[in-house]
């Protein structure tokens, strides 16, 4: 039985305690907590002996609330670092309630990756879903509220799939241990739940829908945890499931293609999360030790450089209030440090030698090439080309230069106000940039954290030359297709159309018109209004939202799906139990 002292070893504890305290203490103390808690978590991780486990018993179930093996520790380290950087970035902008949600989210993600059994894993998984929803709702605007509710329903659906899979697995094997799964019915349900959180196509649309609508710091937190916790779960339970290889390759290409189309800079980067997670999912599909190391290393590096990219675009949004490429441009002279720091992230994600993404992505791609040859590698390289094209060239050009060139210098008139960003944002971006460079220059630091000894020495003349040529010719391609690549003020439909517009289309209603209206039976109208009132009360209570509540129609189809699936699983559980 675990003792209280054993449980205090858990690095999620300081984050969870700080989350609770942030809810009650004054704002200035919450600023200290949001930085101090991740530091304490990092110290705990440093003190945690690899291989440590904390067993516990709940009723008749044998649990393992803490399992600090190589795979879990690699993710735990980067989760704590991400909490520190994201918390620092939000020091000047986040409210205490937002810090509370963010720290709870980080604590739950830490709980997910350090869980040794499926029950602890499920509980942490669900807390993570709720905390991340609250983080999105903290933007306190109508569109963020609606996106948050859609996000919640998608993740509740995933949570139900996970619970059903866990219970079915328990019923068939009698074990709650979280180990590698065979291809069975319960494993497929758990795989689907993980696929939703990993944003595997076509279950990904919640990500570009919700992430860009959070606050500037909220988006940085969001980019670190949900998809990477799912990558961890896939690596733990589904390594070598070949379907993941194909799903991953498709994700890489789908994400970059949509990113090229996007106008909103934070939505563009959200599609790049889908693309980069695709590299990890594909490597997990290969399942060799080198591939799992590659997926883990890429998750580690991705949290650093994607956080940096979203900090850079967040700083632009904070300074100008604008996030569409077509409404930006000419920021270079006024935001030089932000541009330089953003470019460190952009070159990392593009896997330029000496940057973190180079060592991680190449390891994953090389592992795939050993098992599946050049065809898969060519597709992944094309995805890399798209990554540099949009994050390294198109986005920074449109944002910092564009039609306005380098823009006005300080003290000169500008077409729109460019306000100063706080030092804490520079500190967070600087920290992330330094870590990206350190890992790129000293890859051994990252290799030492990986779960297996198998590594790929990426710094060879051939590999470096090939990568430099690839990126150089991508830049030439950008020059060649410059006019075609110019951003357009358009919105791109995605698979969330199925639950955002299809219900209205089905009923012949106008966009935005609620599904329930004239001619609807009174019992349904009354029930709907009751639900709306209840949701309004909860939202006002939890996030203090001033905006109108999300309309019931926005989540109607998802709500029906969630309730329906819940009922089916309840009946199945009752049947299985009897």
């Amino acid at each position: 039985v675990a003792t209280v002292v054993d449980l205090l070893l858990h690095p999620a504890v300081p984050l969870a305690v700080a989350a609770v305290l942030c809810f009650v203490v004054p704002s200035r103390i919450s600023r200290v907590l949001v930085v101090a808690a991740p530091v304490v978590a990092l110290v705990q991780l440093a003190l945690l002996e690899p291989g440590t486990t904390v067993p516990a018993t709940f009723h008749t179930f044998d649990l393992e609330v803490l399992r600090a093996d190589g795979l879990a520790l690699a993710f735990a380290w980067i989760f704590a670092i991400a909490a520190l950087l994201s918390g620092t970035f939000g020091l000047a902008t986040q409210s205490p309630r937002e810090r509370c949600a963010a720290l709870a989210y980080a604590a739950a993600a830490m709980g997910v990756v350090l869980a040794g059994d499926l029950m602890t894993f499920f509980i942490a998984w669900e807390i993570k879903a709720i905390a991340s929803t609250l983080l999105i709702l903290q933007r306190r605007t109508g569109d963020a509220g609606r996106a948050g509710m859609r996000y919640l329903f998608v993740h509740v659906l995933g949570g139900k799939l996970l619970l059903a899979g866990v219970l079915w697995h328990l019923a068939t094997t009698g074990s709650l241990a979280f180990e590698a799964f065979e291809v069975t019915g319960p494993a497929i349900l758990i795989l689907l739940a993980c696929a939703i959180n990993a944003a595997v196509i076509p279950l990904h649309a919640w990500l570009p829908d919700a992430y860009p609508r959070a606050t500037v710091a909220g988006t940085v937190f969001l980019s670190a945890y949900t998809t990477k916790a799912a990558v961890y779960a896939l690596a733990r339970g589904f390594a070598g499931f070949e379907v993941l290889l194909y799903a991953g390759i498709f994700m890489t290409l789908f994400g970059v293609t949509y990113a090229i189309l996007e106008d909103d800079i934070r939505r563009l980067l959200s599609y790049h999360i889908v693309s980069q997670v695709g590299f990890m999912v594909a490597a997990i599909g290969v399942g060799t030790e080198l591939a799992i190391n590659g997926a883990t290393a890429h998750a580690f590096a991705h949290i650093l450089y994607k956080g940096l990219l979203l900090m850079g675009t967040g700083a632009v949004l904070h300074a100008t209030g604008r996030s569409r490429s077509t409404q930006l441009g000419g920021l270079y002279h006024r935001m030089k440090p932000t541009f330089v720091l953003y470019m460190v992230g952009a070159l990392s994600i593009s896997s330029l030698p000496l940057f973190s993404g180079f060592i991680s992505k190449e390891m994953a791609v090389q592992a795939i090439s050993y098992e599946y040859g050049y065809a898969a590698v060519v597709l992944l390289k094309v995805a890399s080309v798209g990554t540099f094209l949009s994050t390294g060239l198109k986005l920074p050009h449109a944002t910092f230069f564009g039609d306005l060139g380098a823009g006005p210098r300080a003290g000169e008139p500008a077409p729109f106000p460019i306000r100063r960003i706080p030092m804490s944002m520079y500190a967070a971006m600087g920290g992330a940039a330094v870590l990206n460079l350190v890992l790129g220059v000293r890859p051994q630091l990252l290799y030492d954290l990986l779960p297996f000894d198998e590594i790929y020495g990426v710094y060879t003349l051939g590999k470096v030359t090939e990568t430099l040529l690839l990126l150089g010719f991508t830049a030439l391609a950008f020059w060649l297709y410059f006019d075609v690549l110019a951003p357009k003020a358009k919105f791109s439909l995605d698979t969330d159309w199925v639950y955002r517009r299809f219900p209205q289309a089905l009923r012949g209603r106008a966009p935005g018109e609620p599904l329930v209206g004239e001619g609807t039976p009174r019992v349904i109208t009354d029930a709907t209004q009751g639900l709306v009132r209840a949701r309004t009360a909860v939202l006002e209570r939890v996030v203090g939202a001033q905006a109108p509540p999300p309309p019931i129609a926005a989540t109607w189809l998802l709500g029906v799906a969630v309730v329906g699936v819940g009922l089916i699983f309840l009946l199945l559980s009752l049947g299985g139990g009897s």
Partner: protein
Amino acid sequence: VNVRALPWVGAAVVVSVVIDLVIGYSPVPGYAAALGLVGGGALTVAGKVLLPKLVSRAPDYYPLDEAPAVQTDVLATGPDPRDADGRPLPDGTLDAPRPGGGDRG
């Protein structure tokens, strides 16, 4: 296609083939150049020509969820930029249109 870039691209391809022949790492000479140019071109065509026909809509396609042009709720607080003498610069309005309009497409 930007025609001014073509001579430079041609020269760069020749140089890359020579580099590949000297180093002998790539499976075929010009491999990286082909991936960069053809891959970039394919993605540009897919992302900017083919895909928009299927998925591009007006920004207010979901009218309730369209973000405002200036998202004041996340905008840094504080005074608008001023010149060296402390006078507000003439860019003081938040919704001032960009010169040349918003859509560059």
